């Protein structure tokens, strides 16, 4: 269905662009036989939670050759994970909420009762 759409236009940052007839044929081939980007991003999200098959991982590698965008997306999902898992350590930086002093006293009182 990709028709004449050019998945690797001139000036794009992907490894394979359509610089000559040979590359053009390769780009078209890879574009036809690997999942389309819209599908790739779903697969990439899934790869964060379960292991992909070897075939699928190979297809993604191939796809990256013609698509720097999906490659970036993959990298950024890992960055996003790193950010989110560090967020609890940075909670002081984005929230000024605090326990009231009465709440703290209540907690201490309860703890005293629990551990004589």
């Amino acid at each position, binding site marked *: 269905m*990709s028709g004449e759409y050019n998945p690797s236009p001139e000036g794009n940052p992907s490894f394979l662009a359509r610089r000559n007839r040979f590359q053009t044929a390769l780009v078209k081939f890879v574009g036809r036989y690997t999942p389309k*980007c819209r599908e790739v991003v779903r697969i990439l999200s899934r790869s964060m939670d379960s292991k992909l098959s070897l075939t699928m991982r190979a297809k993604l590698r191939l796809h990256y050759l013609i698509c720097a965008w999906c490659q970036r997306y993959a990298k950024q999902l890992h960055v996003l994970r790193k950010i989110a898992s560090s967020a609890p350590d940075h909670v002081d930086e984005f929230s000024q909420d*605090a326990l009231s002093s009465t709440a703290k006293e209540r907690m201490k009182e309860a703890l005293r009762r629990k551990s004589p």
Partner: protein
Amino acid sequence: MRFPKSEGAKPAVTTGADPERWVEEHGDCLYRYALLRVRRPEIAEDLVQETFFVAVRTSGNFRGKSSERSWLCGILKNKICDYFRKLGRETCFTDLEFLADELSHKFVPQGFWNHEAGPLEWKPEAEVVMHRTEFWETFRDCLTKLPQRIADVFMLREMEEMETSQICEALNISPNNLWVMLHRARMALRECLEINWFKKPQQEGHL
């Protein structure tokens, strides 16, 4: 630290445990985290209280390998997971409406990225920006823009680091629905961080 099912039903050995100091030193931080996750002050307070109770009971297990705060934070994470397990029994967690078109303007009809709208190179690297307070404010704002349930499953997965099978079980959602929700959360957050942080001139800082 990954969700030990029992919270160490060991006898109380309070060696060096100083619960009242914990309340002073870590109470606010734990409360902030809990509040981010459950949104209701009274519930957040309860979770913090329970965290301290568990900490008192299990302080014998704390060997000082991690900091006291991350130890307490680990206990709180378990408490948050338990809270969502309970909530999952009462509430429907599936939300497939959000981003149903999955940012369709980002893709051309053939399914490739629209080359004007593809992901940008993120600069400077996340390791650098993670030291900046403004970055975390942006991240929080992006999280709050997500629909509640989408944000809940995303945070259970990425902050409490719950396994997807456990999330499905806890919230009573099908694996497929969970994949879809996580995908949409990631897509929206990535986009939001890009627009509101990485695309903005850094010298002006956070706008």
